[in-house]
């Protein structure tokens, strides 16, 4: 009798010991935070045997992408493309940049021009978050608008050119998205099965957490400090990308001039949305679509997202109402820390 009790006690302690070993307590990720790549904060959380090497390699890959795709990198693909605008020269473009250019054109078409990387001349004129930020005159805006047309990005095999002089392709709304996918590919090549990367708030998850539960990604509250959220998305191996008028902006006479320009008007988009969040398999798609839907507004935005398979969205309107697409019915948990928002449409 006493022996039985003793055995039971031993068994109990063994179980407790094993179960605590199996839980997440013992798994430590490799974590990095970089402030000097792509003009933003890059956070990595990588689990697994080769996590350290994978994280280092990811940083190298990001620097390579930055050199090719940012507008200011001398000799980079996009820099050469813009420098030669209108002079007829075909520029040999790296296949990665070419992939992003093609994606950009694809989403321009899909969104009816609400997303357009040739909006570059206007981005430059407004200079939002640069030392040259200003409100350009209506004449100037109208003039520059004539240069905006994604059909003027001409592609021929491995080469590309811009049709007219003074045109500027600006991959700001999509390159970071592509970079997120590239990082996930680096992780996979090192056999990593569980990781999270954030490129300035563009979040991409690989697999699940090491304990097998889903990643919990907070959806940013567009009217609060960084880090505050209005809801939680439970995801497995998805990209979650937000756009909003809170990311980069300046204010004059009480008006907020933010960085997402409407390629049709040349002015900061004023569609009634203050934040859009896209969930997709590829972060390049999520990045382009978060911008496109921000410009399109609630109704057209919902319609566009519902028309694309495997892509979902959370939209926040100016009057602090939250809308989601049908597919997020179970994975989006409305959890507003501020208590100011109202969850209106649950799919």
């Amino acid at each position, binding site marked *: 009798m006493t022996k039985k009790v003793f055995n039971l006690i031993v068994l109990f302690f063994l179980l407790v010991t094993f179960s605590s070993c199996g839980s997440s307590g013992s798994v430590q990720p*490799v*974590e*990095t*935070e*970089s402030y000097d790549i792509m003009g933003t904060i890059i*956070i990595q*959380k990588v689990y697994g045997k080769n996590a350290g090497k994978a*994280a280092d390699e990811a*940083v190298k890959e990001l620097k390579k992408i930055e050199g090719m795709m940012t507008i200011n990198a001398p000799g980079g693909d996009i820099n050469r493309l813009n420098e030669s605008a209108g002079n007829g020269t075909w520029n040999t473009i790296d296949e990665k940049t070419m992939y992003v250019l093609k994606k950009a054109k694809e989403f321009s078409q899909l969104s009816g021009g609400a997303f357009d990387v040739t909006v570059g001349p206007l981005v430059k004129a407004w200079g939002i978050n640069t030392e040259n930020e200003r409100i350009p005159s209506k004449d100037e805006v109208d003039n520059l608008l004539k240069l905006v047309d994604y059909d003027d990005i001409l592609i021929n095999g491995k080469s590309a050119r811009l049709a007219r002089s003074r045109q500027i392709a600006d991959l700001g709304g999509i390159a970071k998205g592509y970079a997120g996918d590239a990082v996930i590919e680096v992780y996979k090549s090192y056999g990593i099965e569980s990781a*999270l990367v*954030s490129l*300035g*708030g*563009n*979040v991409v998850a690989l697999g699940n*957490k090491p304990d097998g539960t889903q*990643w*919990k*990604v*907070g*959806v*940013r509250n567009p009217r609060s400090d*960084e*880090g*505050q*959220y209005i809801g*939680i998305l439970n995801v497995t191996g998805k990209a*979650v*990308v*937000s756009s909003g008028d809170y*990311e980069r902006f300046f204010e004059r006479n009480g008006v907020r001039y933010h960085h997402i320009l409407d390629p049709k008007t040349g002015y900061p988009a004023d569609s009634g949305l203050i934040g859009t*969040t896209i969930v997709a398999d590829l972060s390049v798609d999520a990045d382009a679509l978060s911008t496109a839907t921000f410009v399109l507004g609630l109704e057209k935005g919902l319609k566009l997202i519902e028309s694309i398979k495997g892509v979902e969205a959370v939209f926040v309107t100016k009057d602090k109402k939250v809308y989601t697409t049908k597919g997020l019915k179970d994975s989006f948990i409305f*959890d507003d*820390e501020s208590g100011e928002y109202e969850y209106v449409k649950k799919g």
Partner: protein
Amino acid sequence: MLKKGDVILVALILTAIILGVAGTRIMGAIDRSDSLVAVIKQGDRVIRRINLEKVGNAERIVVSGDYRDTILVEKGRIRFEDADCPDHVCVRTGWLSEKGDTAVCIPNRTMIKITGEKSKVDIVTD
């Protein structure tokens, strides 16, 4: 007609529901409050992440590199205790105990910063 027993039963159930809801709310509020976390970094790499509210016994952490920093952690606070770098700016910074507090040892590329971390999410989009 309700019997006396029924009234008591209904009252009991209602009390239980109210207590339950209030309890969940309060627990929720506690759960969502940020916890004070000290992040120790060297270069880009996060070396340790310590919930300062959960520190039991004081702990010393040595960060080696070009130089050698010794970090002391106690409940609710953290500091560079000692360093063999030339300038000792990090040690002179003293204790860090509030969200946003930062101390840096530039020669050894070591940084301690205190952040408020949310327990309910892994990351927030921006």
